[in-house]
């Protein structure tokens, strides 16, 4: 009978023999492949403290901290606080149909004073002074414009839904109105960017080939078009079932064509195939109003799982990556977007509804963040990350900022 220690020693002896060094041929072959290898985009280093907290653990923490009711309450008061919201749909007001006999879906407005969970180990980003950034141009504003979330198309033009005529304003990078586009009135696919209660919003997400998906805010649906703006299909209606929308606020698409829809009425992000087949829900129970996907299925949203304003990131499988609180940088983070380099941009408002800061979390991990005084409620950036287009809350305008290189 071999003793354990004898066996361990024999195994160690056995494993001692082997080749001495790696052939240069292997090193050169590996090196030759580096140039043609597409590197993964970086994850955000500041989310590390949350890496090991699973969805179930987090949910337990939430429930421990205050029970299911507190969850709803916390969500409601978290992102938008229910104070001083503009009527662009980026608000915490009740679901427009909830009071008229439509399906009862929990509304964020049911919570006006949220207890804040202390159970979450969410790091707080330190204060940092905002550098000045002067706008290169700004669209003519005023109530008549009433724009939704801007987005940059692959050709570099900026699209923003307009609630005045339920069509998109398409701007050149220089700020000129290039075109107004939308299915005509009477067409079955005509957009409606206004809810019955007057809230205005609309959003769009582009595939790399210029095909696109429109979040038809007032019709509770997503409409898909190809790059030639030919209608390909649509899905969705008001409701609480899979593939239905209550207060869908933002839309994104990754490089494989998965479509993400953030719904602040359902408190989750629904994920669909490119043609609308429901895949799964992300951040169920605590999804935010705004989202951005980095193209590989990672999703960021501007609401912490405990209902406070902040940033939360989810992995492609829907589980948590992490979260961060930024009360000194952006008290109310709202619009989120990525550039093509993997950098993440966040804009938001102060607690007094004034424009807050714009923050760029630089990739790769370990990079620092930049803070500029160029806040707003929604943002689009160029793929190179050298220009940001920010929707301003108070003036109903889109302003372009030239961003200094990282």
């Amino acid at each position, binding site marked *: *009978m*071999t003793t*354990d220690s004898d*066996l*361990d*020693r*024999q*195994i*160690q*002896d*056995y*494993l*001692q*023999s*082997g*080749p*001495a*060094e*790696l*052939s240069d041929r*292997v*090193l050169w*072959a*590996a*090196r030759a*492949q*580096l*140039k043609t*290898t*597409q*590197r*993964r*985009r*970086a*994850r955000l*280093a500041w989310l*590390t403290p949350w890496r090991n907290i699973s969805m179930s653990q987090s949910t337990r923490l939430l429930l421990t901290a205050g029970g299911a009711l507190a969850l709803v309450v916390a969500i409601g008061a978290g992102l938008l606080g229910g104070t001083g919201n503009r009527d662009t749909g980026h608000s915490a007001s009740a679901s427009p149909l909830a009071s008229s006999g439509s399906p009862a879906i929990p509304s964020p407005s049911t919570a006006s004073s949220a207890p804040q969970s202390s159970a979450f180990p969410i790091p707080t980003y330190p204060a940092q002074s905002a550098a000045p950034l002067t706008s290169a141009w700004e669209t003519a504003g005023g109530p008549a414009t009433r724009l939704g979330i801007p987005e940059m198309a692959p050709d570099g033009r900026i699209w923003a839904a307009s609630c005045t005529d339920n069509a998109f304003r398409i701007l050149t990078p220089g700020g000129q109105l290039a075109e107004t586009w939308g299915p005509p009135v009477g067409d079955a696919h005509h957009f409606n960017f206004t809810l019955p209660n007057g809230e205005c919003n609309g959003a769009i997400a582009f595939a790399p080939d210029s095909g696109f998906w429109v979040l038809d805010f007032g019709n509770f649906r997503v409409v898909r078009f190809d790059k030639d703006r030919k209608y390909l299909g649509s899905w969705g209606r008001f409701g609480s079932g899979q593939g239905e929308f209550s207060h869908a606020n933002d839309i994104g698409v990754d490089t494989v064509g998965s479509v993400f829809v953030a719904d602040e009425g359902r408190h989750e992000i629904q994920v669909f195939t490119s043609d609308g087949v429901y895949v799964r829900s992300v951040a169920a129970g605590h999804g935010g109003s705004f989202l951005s996907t980095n193209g590989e299925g990672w999703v960021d949203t501007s609401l912490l799982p405990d209902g406070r304003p902040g940033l939360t990131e989810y992995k492609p499988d829907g589980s948590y990556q992490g979260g961060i609180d930024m009360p000194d940088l952006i008290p109310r983070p709202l619009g989120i977007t990525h550039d093509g380099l*993997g950098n993440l941009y966040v804009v938001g408002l102060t607690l007094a509804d004034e424009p807050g800061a714009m923050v760029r979390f630089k*990739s*790769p*991990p*370990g990079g620092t963040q930049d803070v500029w005084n160029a806040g707003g409620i929604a943002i689009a950036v160029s793929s190179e990350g050298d220009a940001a287009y920010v929707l301003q809350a108070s003036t109903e305008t889109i302003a372009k900022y030239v961003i200094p290189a990282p």
Partner: protein
Amino acid sequence: MDVLLVERAIAGDEEAYAGLMAMAGDRLLAIAYRILRDLHRAEDAVQVALVNAWRDLPTLRDADRFEAWLTRILVRACYVEADRGRRWNANMRVLPIDLPETSDPTSTVVDRDRLDRGFRRLPTDQRAIVVLHHYLGWSQPEIARALEVPIGTVKSRLFYATQGLRAAIEADDRPTSAERPA
């Protein structure tokens, strides 16, 4: 490992990464060879691991963890390589190792052959744990952390691997039916 070099590589500096490859290459080959027991497949696994690591480097958050992180990528490359080899290797006879061996006064050729037969019969994931534990000297929690598997998985793989190796040795020690007394 030079942390500054790792950070430069994370940021996309190919020269820095080439330096890391040169520094890590021998160690990676040593690990891969001990898992796969085949030099050419070990070299293939190392090459794949080096390229995959370059691809995934931007996702590495802590440069200090580079070595463990790279080892994980290598072990996964070994899994793939072993699986690939299994398809066309199933009916091949196992040949003795023809590599130079270090001098080893405490181990006999018989012991080594028995262990070698037993080791080659182990599943690749068990071999990997044995190598990380007995060759690199990593503790079970260190292995669990590096491979991102539960500690229970490490323990069970190591247990079954050890059982398998013990069985291989002791089976050879048992007398055959012809040797047994009537």
